């Protein structure tokens, strides 16, 4: 019995140790951001790898999510004769919830896992410790630019996702299902509020960008330096980042709209 408790305590301690290491890692990499200003080329390269390469999946996903919303919303609203409100339904659900959350989940799967694998492999092949030998801080040189690029990319990707989703809903609603075009846009514009809806969506995507980049880079940096360790770390990134996104989304929604 005491053996079980002992094991349990040990794993609890190692969990807290990991959380603590994560905090130190965050402060370390944030400390590297000022030194990036003269070397912004590093960030641009990462923006290309993280942001531009995620563009296709985000755009296609946004379009389809919007189209499905339009179709499903129409079938429900038409029973009440309120299909003119379809624009409001599509825009509000995308701007407030689906845009930030789905874009962040895709980002965690597409870019987060790649970041973890890249950093984990650098660690496994001792490139990071090699840098340390040359008196280059590997966190400042390799991780801070990736963090900054992820932090910048996700809000922009979210905006693209949301906008394409709105247009996807429009394509289904107006040409396909015959909803009145004027009503679609005017009701949307009347009901979607900049400060209440769009601003809170942007705040969500900024928070998600911070958290997903942090988790992905920490998992890579903290990975066991073996091929198995890297593969485990990549899986953990996707799982932990997805859970963090969904959990934080609830907290942020409760803070912004709730109670």
């Amino acid at each position, binding site marked *: 019995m005491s053996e079980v408790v002992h094991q349990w305590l040990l794993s609890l301690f190692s969990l807290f140790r990991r959380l603590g290491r994560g905090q130190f890692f965050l402060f370390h990499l944030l400390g590297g951001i000022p030194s990036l200003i003269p070397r912004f*080329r590093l960030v*641009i*390269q990462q*923006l*290309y790898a993280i*942001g*531009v390469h995620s*563009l296709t999946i985000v755009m296609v996903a946004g379009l389809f999510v919007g189209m499905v919303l339009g179709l499903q919303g129409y079938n429900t609203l038409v029973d*009440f*004769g*309120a299909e*003119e*409100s379809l624009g409001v339904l599509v*825009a509000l659900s995308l*701007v407030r919830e689906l845009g930030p959350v789905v874009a962040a989940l895709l980002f965690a799967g597409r870019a987060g896992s790649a970041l973890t694998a890249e950093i984990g492999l650098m660690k496994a092949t001792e490139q990071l410790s090699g840098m340390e030998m040359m008196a280059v801080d590997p966190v400042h040189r390799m991780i801070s630019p990736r963090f900054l690029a992820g932090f*910048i*990319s996700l*809000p*922009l*990707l979210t*905006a*693209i996702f*949301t*906008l394409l989703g*709105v247009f996807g809903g429009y394509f289904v609603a107006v040409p396909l299902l015959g909803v009145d075009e004027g009503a679609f846009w005017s*009701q*949307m*514009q*009347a*009901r*979607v*509020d*900049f400060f209440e*809806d*769009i601003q809170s969506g*942007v705040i969500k995507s900024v928070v998600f960008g911070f958290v997903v980049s942090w988790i992905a880079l920490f998992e890579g940096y903290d990975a066991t330096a073996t091929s198995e360790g890297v593969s485990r770390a990549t899986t953990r990134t996707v799982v932990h980042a997805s859970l963090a996104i969904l959990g934080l989304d609830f907290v942020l929604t409760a803070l912004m709209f709730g109670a």
Partner: protein
Amino acid sequence: MKQSRAVEIWVGLFMGIGIAALVVLAFYVGNLSSYNSVTGYRLEARFDEIGGLKPRAPVTIAGVQVGRVVAIHLDSQEYRAVVEMEIDPEKMPLQRLNEEGEPLIDEQGLRVMCDRNGEPPHCSTVLYEDASASILTAGMLGEQYMGLEPGGGALAFLYPGDEVRMTQSSIALEQVIGQFLFNQVDQE
């Protein structure tokens, strides 16, 4: 070097599209431009019941939007809702008055309008003193908005800051049904 130029172009394009998407969301979907701080002149109206009227609801004349509701509060003396609206002088300008308080007419028989900074007592709104305000609903389930009727029976005009005295409250469906049932019982 050539490759890094392509990278820069792609990143620039990505940032450009992202920021453009944000701007379109803000101005087209979110209608941020309706927050423009063009200060118009204010009018006030008191209602017994405002239903679902909210700040930022449109104020219309003959269906044309001329302003917005800016504030709603309760008059706790009379238990009535006080609705403050702001009218855009670009959409409904003030008119110039002569010494007797009648609108100035030009050669073509049209009223002379004041410029943006026109002030009472030389400038008044184009609404008569017996103008009325009512709370209407756009469509069956649509949002509520305020409709103004210019009036015409009175000789004097409303000035900026005045109160529109004739008001028609929002009609709650429950009241209509209640009245209908009451009348039915009365007839039997």
